[in-house]
Structures are given as C-alpha cells and as structure tokens.
C-alpha cells in the first residue's frame, strides 16, 4: 500500500506544485496590474474632480472679469463719474456687486482726484491720501487682461488677500477694480474638492505664487510642488515632510492658475492593503479549492494503477483466480489486460505440471509392482533349484540356475546395454536351456573376433534370432542343424551374424521380415514379434546407423546379420 500512496502522492504533489506556481504567478500579475490600474484610475478620478472644480473657479474669474468689463463700458457709470455724482456711483457699483456673489467689493478709483468710490454702504466715497493713492495706483497698474492679480487689499479696513480685476472706464479718467476675497473663492470652489483634512489643495498663479491653499505649507515644499506643477504632470507622487502624497493638477485656461490636489497616501494605502488582503484571500481560496480538485483528480487517475497493484499483491499471495479490471484504452488498461493473460498462462502451466506429477507417481508405482513379481519368481525358482540339488538332480539344478540368470537379465532394469561378451554369456545359458528342451536337434558354434567382445551392444538382441534358428531351422528331412554365431569389427561397424543350415525361410516370409515393423503380419512359425522388437529397438538406439539383414535361399540356410556402429567400452 505504501507504493500506491507514494505514486498518488507524487502525482498530487506535482500537480499541486504547478498549480501553486501558476496561481501565484497569475495573482502577482493580477495584483501588479490591479494596483497600477488602481493608481491610474484614482488619479483620473481625482483629475476629473479637480477639473470640474477648477473649471467652475475659472468661470467665476470669467464672470468677475466680464462684470468689470461691463461696468467699464457702462455709459451710466461714465456719466456719473463725469458728473461727479459719487453717491449715485456707489449705489450703481453696489447693484453690480449684488449681481455677482463672488465679488467681494467693487472700487472705482479716480487717480486725478485721488477719490475712491466703493460698493459699500458705509464710507463709500473716500479721498485717499497721497501715499495710499500712489500705492493703490501702482498695485492696480499691474493687472490687465484676463488673468487676475493676487494682492493684499490695502484699502479694506482689515488687510486681506484678494484677486483683483481692473478695467479703465471708457470715456472717463477712472479705473474700475473688482476684488474677490481669497477665502471666498476657496470656500466657493476649492474646499469641496479637498474632502478631507489630511488632503491638500494648493492654487498657484501663472508665476508660481501660491494664491490659495487649504492649510499652511512651508516654502521649501511649495517650491517642490510648483516644479511638479510646471511639468503639467497629471499623476504625481511626492513626499512633503514625513507625509506621502499622491495627486494631480489642472491648469485653468482663463486665469492660468493651477489647482493642485494632493491626497494623503495613508488613505490610499488603506485601500491597497485591503486589495492585498483580498488578493491573498483569493489565492488561499483558489488554492484550497484547486487542491481539493487535484486530490480527487489524482485519486481518479491513480485508481486503475492502485487496483492493478492490489490484484498483483493478492496474486503474489497465491490467489490465481483473481483478474485485474481492465479500464480504458490507455497504458494501464493494456498492462491489466496483459497481466490477466499472463495469469491465465501461468494457471495452465501449473495444471499441466500437477498432471505430470500424478502420472509420474502412477508410473513409479507400476514399476515397483513389476519389480516385486520377478523377485518372487526368482526366490521360488531358487528354492526349487536347491530342492533339486539336494535330491541329486544336478541337471535340473543347473538348468534352473541358467533360467534364473536369463530371467534376471531379461528383467534387469539396471542398464539396457552390455558388452558383447556378456551378451554371448547370457546366450550360452539360453542355448543350454534349449539343448535340455530339444535334446540333440541342434549344435551351436561360436566364431567371435576377440576385439569385438568388448563392444557395447543392446541386451538380448541375439536371443530372438537364435531362438528362431533353434525352433524353425530343423525340418523332417534334416532334424539336426548347426548354428554358427560369429562377430567381427569391420570399418567401424560391429557385424554379428547368426547362420543356420536349416530349411531356410521362404521368400514370402523373408520379404515380410524385411518390411517395416508396422507392415508385418503375425506369422505362425517365425516369431515376428521378437524380431520386430529387436529391429524397433535398434532403430530407436541408433537410427539409420544400424541394420538387420536377413538372407536365405529357402532351402539350405538362413543368415541374419546385425550391423551396429562399433562402440568399444574401455
């Protein structure tokens, strides 16, 4: 089970690693672009807000500019100045002032008479002393056109900062000036833009002077700010003192003033940290979810492998009847299929092996039984032999001894081969038995080459042929036959021949003998079975290297020659 777990675990781990890397990479990208986008969007929203505020402020300036111009072109004003009706003039100015709430007050200054007419209820006509008149003249000379002049109004009871527009009255030696108080403008247009106390609003004029601001900033910082503003950067990020700001600015086309809005970064950081937390939570959530799915997936993918491994283990414990489940058309499916085939094959092999074992045991038992019988026969024969000896029948005793020896040789399982000498010795015992049986019907002569005696020959190959000669050679005409057994080594072959001078074999029978064992027919006289047996044995031992040749004229002789490859035993 450990291997299976490992396999699944490895797969799970690999998928998880790729997954984690992918998600983290995607999230980093996402986070990077999200923050970038956030800053840019934030800057653009700031810009939009400040743009509208600045536009309104600019329209305020334009209205004051237009009003100043209107007053200067007002024929009635010219008339009143020329008539010297200053009280009426003041009333007229007051009417104008009331038309535009942004205007703080309106002055009409006549430099020749050093008279100032104001749009006020109280003390509306003033005669200025020389010094004040000159200063005022110098101040208002600085202003012309559409851009307002930012000054300290020295003529108001309490000195205050104002924006000033001036126009020369057409057809009279007089100047109309309209003042807008800095605070008035600030609260009318700029204050809403700032929203929070931590934020900063600064308004510069075209020359870089601060003309309005939400709170005091030291001069060094203002210079920094203005250099930023000069670049007309709509997305700026800077540090003032120990505070970090993010901001944007808009230049007003008419007054050429620039409004700068700086938002304390602490505020944005809060949002960014929120975004970070959101990203991290997102990553964790997606990771958990994907881990779950990956686990399920890897389990699903591994299921066939695990099944196969389990089956293998069970088979390993000896349960060959189990078969693996073949699922799908992939490598695992193929493996399972092959494994099943292998199991079937093994099962057949085992069955065969078991059968063979049973058969072998049966054969062994049979063999044992066969061994028991000859022993019993030997023992009995030996007992009879000893009885014969005791009773003085020496002849019978010898016969029995020969018979027993012959029987032993014929049932000997020790070896199928022996030397020719042993074979001849066995044959002599057989001949002695037959001599006893048939009494002087035949005689056997041996003509054996000395060197052939140590040759290796199959046991009992001569006996059937000798038996044939003994039994079938004598005829009524010739009752006594001579049998000659000879052997020689010639050209690597051992030739053993059995020749008799009996009645011979008819060509018919001879032909039958030469035929293949399967074709032969049982024949009354010559024992076909014995000869056929010999021929078959020789064929099995030597193949085509051995021959059995039968020769006979059918009247006076029969000669059987056995040709074997000469195998001299050491």
């Amino acid at each position, binding site marked *: 089970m450990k291997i299976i777990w490992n396999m699944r675990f490895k797969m799970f781990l690999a998928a998880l690693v*790729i997954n984690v890397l*992918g998600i983290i990479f*995607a999230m980093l*990208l996402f986070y990077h*672009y999200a923050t*970038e*986008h956030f800053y*840019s969007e934030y800057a*653009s929203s700031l*810009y939009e807000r400040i743009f509208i505020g600045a536009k309104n402020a600019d329209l305020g300036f*334009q209205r004051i*500019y*237009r009003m100043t*111009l*209107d007053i200067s*072109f007002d024929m009635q004003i010219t008339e009143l100045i020329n008539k010297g009706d200053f009280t009426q003039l003041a009333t007229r100015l007051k009417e104008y002032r009331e038309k535009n709430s942004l205007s703080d007050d309106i002055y009409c200054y006549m430099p020749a008479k050093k008279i100032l007419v104001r749009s006020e209820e109280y003390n509306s006509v003033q005669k200025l002393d020389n010094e004040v008149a000159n200063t005022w003249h110098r101040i208002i000379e600085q202003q*012309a*056109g*559409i*851009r307002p002049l930012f000054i300290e109004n020295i003529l108001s009871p309490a000195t205050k900062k104002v924006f000033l527009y001036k*126009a020369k009255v*057409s057809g009279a030696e007089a100047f109309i000036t309209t003042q807008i108080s800095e605070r008035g403008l600030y609260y009318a247009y700029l204050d809403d833009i700032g929203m929070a106390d931590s934020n900063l609003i600064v308004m510069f004029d075209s020359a870089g002077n601060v003309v309005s601001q939400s709170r005091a900033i030291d001069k060094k910082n203002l210079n920094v700010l203005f250099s930023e503003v000069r670049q*007309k950067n*709509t997305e700026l990020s800077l540090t003032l003192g120990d505070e970090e700001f993010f901001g944007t600015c*808009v*230049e007003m*086309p*008419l007054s*050429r003033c620039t409004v700068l809005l700086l938002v304390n970064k602490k505020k944005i950081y809060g949002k960014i940290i929120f975004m970070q937390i959101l990203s991290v939570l997102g990553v964790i959530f997606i990771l958990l979810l994907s881990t779950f799915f990956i686990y399920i997936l890897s389990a699903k993918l591994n299921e066939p492998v695990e099944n196969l491994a389990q089956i293998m283990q069970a088979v390993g414990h000896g349960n060959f009847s189990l078969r693996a489940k073949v699922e799908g058309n992939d490598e695992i499916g193929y493996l399972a299929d092959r494994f099943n085939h292998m199991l079937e094959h093994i099962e057949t092999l085992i069955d065969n092996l078991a059968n063979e074992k049973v058969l072998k045991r049966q054969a062994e038992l049979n063999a044992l039984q066969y061994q028991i019988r000859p022993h019993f026969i030997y023992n009995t024969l030996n007992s009879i032999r000893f009885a014969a000896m005791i009773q003085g029948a020496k002849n019978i005793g010898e016969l029995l001894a020969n018979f027993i020896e012959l029987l032993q040789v014929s049932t000997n399982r020790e070896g199928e081969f022996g030397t020719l000498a042993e074979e001849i010795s066995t044959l002599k015992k057989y001949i002695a038995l037959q001599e006893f049986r048939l009494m002087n019907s035949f005689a056997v002569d041996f003509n054996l080459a000395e060197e052939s005696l140590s040759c290796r020959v199959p046991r009992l190959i001569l006996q059937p042929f000798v038996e044939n000669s003994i039994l079938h050679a004598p005829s009524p005409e010739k009752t006594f036959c001579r049998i000659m057994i000879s052997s020689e080594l010639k050209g690597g072959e051992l030739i053993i021949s059995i020749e008799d001078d009996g009645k011979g074999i008819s060509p018919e029978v001879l032909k039958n003998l030469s035929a293949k064992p399967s074709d032969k027919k049982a024949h009354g006289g010559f024992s076909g079975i014995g000869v056929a047996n010999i021929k078959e044995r020789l064929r099995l031992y030597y193949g085509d290297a051995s021959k059995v040749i039968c020769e006979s004229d059918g009247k006076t002789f029969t000669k059987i020659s056995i040709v074997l490859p000469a195998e001299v035993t050491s």
Partner: protein
Amino acid sequence: MTKFIALFYVTLAMLLIAVVSYSIQKSEENFSPPKYTIGVVLKAMDSEHWLSVRSGMTEAAQKNNMRLIVITAENETAFAEQNKIIGDLLANDIDALIVSPTNINHTKEFVDLARKKNIPVFSIDEEIDEIIYIGSNNYAVGEMAAAFMAANLPAGSEVSVISGSANQNAHIQRTAGFVDYIEKNSSLIIGKTMAAETQYRQAMTQAEKLLRERPNTRGIFVTSAIMTLGVIETTENFPVMIIGVDTQNDAIMAVKNGKIDALISQDGHESGRLAIEVVAAHMNNEPVQKYNFIRNELITADNAEHFLLQEDF
C-alpha cells in the same frame, strides 16, 4: 503528460498576451491634459443659436483634446467690448482664436494683433476678409428663401427684407442673395430692404413700419430667427408670407403652428462642431479651406417636427 505541459504553456502565453495587450490599451487610454487652449469670442449668448454653437464647440473640443475659453460681449452691438475681450484673450497665451465679430468694420485691429502674436484666427457665422470662415453660406441662404417665395407667391407680388445689423456680413449676404434671386429668377417685385439691430423689439417695430408704408407687401424675408419672432407679432393678421433663418426651437414651433411659413436652417451645434474640427485640422498642419459651409435646409410645417427632434427635447 506532454499534452498537459503544452496546454499549460499555451494558457500561460495567452495570459501574457492578454495582460500585455491590456496594458498597451491602458496606456492609450491614459488621459492627458488638453493640448491646446482655444479662445472663443461669440457675438452674444442671448439666443438659442449661440448656446447650441457653444454646445457643439464644447463637445468637439473634448473629442479633440482642447479646452475652450468662451467669452461673449454683452450684446451683438458691443464691438468695443468684444475687441477688448479679444485683446485680453490674445494676451493670455491662447493657441487659436475663433471669433464671431459683432461688427465687420472693426476687425482689423484684433486680426493684426493676432497676426503679430502668430495666433491663427477663425471666423464663425460672420465672414472676415482673409480669415478662414465656418458657418452658413449666407448668400445661398438668401437664395433659398427667395426660391421658396417665388414658388409660393403669385407673380407680381411685392416682397421685402428685414435684415439684421448692417455691420454684419451674414445679414448683408443673406439680403443680397435674396434680392439678387428675386430680381433675376422670379416675377416677384422687391419692395424694401430694411436693416435693424438683430433684436426682437427692433424687428417688431420695423415690421410695423414696413406694413404701414407698403401695405401691398405679400412676403417678408427676415434674416434672423429672433427677429422673425418679433416680426410675426405684427404680421399675424396680415396675409404676409414670413421666412426666417436659424434653427431654434421657438421659431420652429412657430413654423409648426403656421405663424412662420418657412425657416432656413442654420444648425448652431453643427457650425460649433465644424469650427473646432477646422481649428484642430489647422493645428495638425492639415490643409484647411477658406470657406467651411454647414448644410442649410428649408424648414416648413411639413418637416418642422423632424428639426424639433434634433434639438434633443
């Protein structure tokens, strides 16, 4: 397994492409402060026509990344004030000036000043010599009105013109177009051509005077809508055909009600938009023609509804 790896890489590549294309697209989207400041001085802001001109300009300016300073004089006669404003604007670092002068006889001063400061000047609705013009083909407007009268009045009928300020080229051109067409191409007779301030009351009194002096008048061509509205106060009970100029809702309503017989359209929104486009083309060094005409169409009771809808009500 190779399939999975391939899939992984393909997905990754697609993601990268998406991100890159998105960031490229984003950098294109990035806003920038307006490039040009255009000074616009119009004749007046007391009629629907000029308000729609300004609206068209503002819309086109936003599209072309420009900002406008639109200032108008008190009324259409205050040329001194207008010239003062133009002078102040020229002193205020503007990149181009669009003017609709109240008096064609007093344009040389600021045209010269602008030339000296190398600030291009464009005229809208009112032609100035050698200055690129955007607006109606006013001569053709007069001819259209004449053609309508010639087709709808019996031969020999007497027709007259009540024109706006004689100091304004638009009115002069419209009158000339009308008179020339009637004289050359119709059997109608020109009665009288009168000029007045382009204002409601003046038009009313002029019409009264005309009908008193020439009771046989069967048709009056009035060269501005605001004047036409004044004229119909007087002519309501007379069998007189009235044709005006300008696309403005109150006048179109009067056409629909049958008080005015026809109007020659002059879409302020379109001329405002066209003016800014011409300026933008000029700033981008593209070739610009001297005359940039807007479409003028005949508005009658039949199609008045269509022009009303155009006004976005």
